[in-house]
C-alpha cells in the first residue's frame, strides 16, 4: 500500500518516534512542536510536555500555535508559570529528559546557529550579520541543560555546514569531551532528523554520521546535500515509512497542514 505524505511529515514522525512515553519533554513553538505533540497523540500519551513559558498540560487546538500565549495553546493549560520555572527549574537544572529544537545551520558536531548569516567568517571583530535570524530563545537553554535533545532541520547544503559561523546552541562544540570541558550539564544532541534522513553522533568523537535514510531519499542525495565529508554508518538503514495510524495522529495535531506546504 502506498501512502502519500510529505518529506516534512516524515521528518516530524521520525522525530516523534524518538520521544518515549512518560518522559519530561519541552517543545518550542514551530514544527518541532508538531513532532512532539504527534508523539503524545500516537505512542507517548503520558509524555509530560511543557513549553518554555511554563505552560503546562496544554495541547494545541485548531492547528499549530502562533505562540505560547495564543488561544490555540492557552485554551486548555492546567498551569501557567514562568520562564524561570520551565527553562530554569525543569530544563537547565538537568531534569528534562528530552527537548526538540530547530536550526538555520547545523555542523558536524551538532552545533546550531539561529543567530545570523554572515558573508564568510565573522572574524576577530564582531559585526552585524548580513541576515539576522531569531536568536537563541530557549533553544540554548535546552541544548545546555536537557538530558538529550533532537535537532529538526530541512536538509539543504546551506544549512549543513562544516562549522557554523556562530554557535547559538551548543552541540558537542569541537567534539570529543568538549561539552564536559565547557561545564555543560546536559548530554547533548542524540539525533539530527532531517527531510532526508537521520544523523547520529559517534560515541567517542561525537561527529555526526548518517544513520538512516528515508524510502524516498538515499545516501547519495544526503551526501550531496551535506556541506561536510559526512561519514556513513556501516549499518545505515532505511527508516520505516509512516504507518496509517502515525499519519492520522500527526494530521490531527497538524490541523492546518503546516507540514504539507
Amino acid at each position, binding site marked *: 500500500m502506498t501512502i502519500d505524505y510529505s518529506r516534512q511529515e516524515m521528518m516530524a514522525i521520525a522525530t516523534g518516534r524518538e520521544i518515549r512515553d512518560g518522559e519530561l519533554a519541552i517543545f518550542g*513553538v*514551530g514544527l518541532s512542536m508538531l513532532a512532539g505533540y504527534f508523539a503524545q497523540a500516537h505512542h507517548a500519551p503520558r509524555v509530560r510536555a511543557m513549553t*518554555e*513559558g*511554563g505552560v503546562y498540560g496544554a495541547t494545541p*487546538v*485548531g492547528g*499549530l*500555535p*502562533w*505562540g*505560547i*500565549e*495564543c*488561544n490555540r495553546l*492557552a*485554551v486548555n493549560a492546567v498551569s*501557567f*508559570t*514562568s*520562564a*524561570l520555572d520551565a*527553562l*530554569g527549574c525543569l*530544563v*537547565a537544572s538537568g531534569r528534562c529528559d528530552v527537548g526538540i529544537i530547530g536550526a538555520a545551520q547545523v555542523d558536524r558536531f551538532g*552545533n546550531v546557529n539561529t*543567530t545570523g548569516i554572515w558573508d564568510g567568517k*565573522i572574524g*576577530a*571583530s*564582531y*559585526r*552585524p*550579520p548580513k*541576515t*539576522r*535570524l*531569531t*536568536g*537563541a*530563545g*530557549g533553544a*540554548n*537553554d535546552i541544548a*545546555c*541543560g536537557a538530558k538529550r535533545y533532537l535537532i529538526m532541520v530541512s536538509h539543504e547544503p546551506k544549512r549543513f555546514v562544516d562549522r557554523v559561523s*556562530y*554557535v*547559538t*546552541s*551548543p552541540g558537542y*562544540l569541537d567534539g570529543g569531551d*568538549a*561539552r564536559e*570541558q*565547557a*561545564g*555543560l*550539564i546536559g548530554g547533548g544532541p542524540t539525533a539530527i532528523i532531517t527531510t532526508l534522513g537521520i544523523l547520529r553522533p559517534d560515541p567517542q568523537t561525537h561527529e555526526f554520521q548518517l544513520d538512516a535514510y528515508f524510502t524516498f531519499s538515499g545516501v547519495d542525495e544526503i551526501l550531496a546535500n551535506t556541506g561536510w565529508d559526512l561519514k556513513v554508518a556501516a549499518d545505515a538503514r532505511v527508516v520505516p515509512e509512516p504507518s496509517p495510524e502515525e499519519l492520522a495522529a500527526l494530521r490531527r495535531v497538524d490541523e492546518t497542514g503546516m507540514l504539507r506546504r
Partner: protein
Amino acid sequence: MPTNKLITLAEAVRRYTWDGMQYASGAALPVGSDAIVFGRELLRQQRRDLHAIFHANTQQLNLLAAAGAVTQAECGFSGLEGFGFANGLRRAIEQGRLVLEDFSNLAMALRLLGGALNWPFIPATVNIGSDLQYRRAFEPDVHPNPNKIPSVTDPFSGKRIGAFSPLRPDLAAIHVTLADPEGDAIMLGTEWSRFELSRAAKRVVLLADAIVHTDCMRQYPNLVRIPGIIVEAVVYWPFTAWPQASPGMYDVDEAHMKAMNQALGSEHGTATYVRDYVDSYVDLDGYLDLIGRGKIAELSNGATAFLLDPYRRWLLSHAEALALTAAASA
C-alpha cells in the same frame, strides 16, 4: 483611603521616560502579553536612543527598532514565533543602527532575578561554551570576550561555570490583565518574567486591560504576583497588547500581526505604519476605533474568554475606569 494611581498613557510616558534611558518591557514572548501601546506612545512623544531590555522581542521592540528609537537592545529570542522574523528589528540590526546583545531566554530571566535580588552576579550554567558567551556586540573588538559572561569557578565543586550580569532597568512598562487602582495586579497566561522584572526595575508602570475593584485581589491574593507597593502608576488601556494576545481577554490578531511585520520591513512601510497606527489616534476610544469594534468583538469572544469568568464580577466599566483616571489627574 486607598491610593488611586491611575494616570493617562501620555502622562505616564511624559513622567517616567527620557531619551537614552534603559527601558524594559516585553512581557511574554512575541505573540503574548506586552505593553505595546506604551511603545506606541514613546514614538508619539519622540523618545530616542533607548537601551531596550526585552526578555524576548515583541511587536513593540520590532516597531521601536524599525522607527529608529532604539540604539541598543538586549534580548533572548529576537523573532516573532509563528510569524517568522521580526522585520523591523532585523533591518535595524543589519543596517548597524541598533546593536543587539544576544542572550538566551533563561539568561534574561536570571539576569532580571539578579537585579531584583541586587546580586553582584548570577551563576550561569547555560549560554556557556557558545558564542553567546564569546561574542559581545557591545564590545565587538574583544574575542573571545571575557566580559560578557566571564568564566568563574564554582567555589564548592571547583567546576567551571559562567557569571551573568544583573539587569536593573530604569523603567519597566508591564502589561497585566487586571489591576486595581492601587497597582495590585493579576496576570492571566504565563508570567514569563514579569515577577522578576517588576522587582528588578527602578520604577514600574502597569498597563492593564481592565481595572478591577480591590476586593478581587482580596479574593485571590495568591494570584497577585505584582503588589501595588512596588508600582508607580497604572494605565487603563484595553487591548494594550494588540495585535498580540492576552489570554482570557483577546486572541492574537493574525492579519494585523502579518501586516504590521510586513510594513516594518521597509523605511516607507514603517513611516506609513507610524502615521496610521501610532500618530493617528487622539485617545483610548480613538485607539479602539482604529482596531475596529467588530474586530474587538471577534478577538474578545475567543476560546480562552472563560479564563476571565472568575473575575468578571469585580470589573469596573469602561466609564468607571476612565472616570478614575480623570479623578487622579485632577
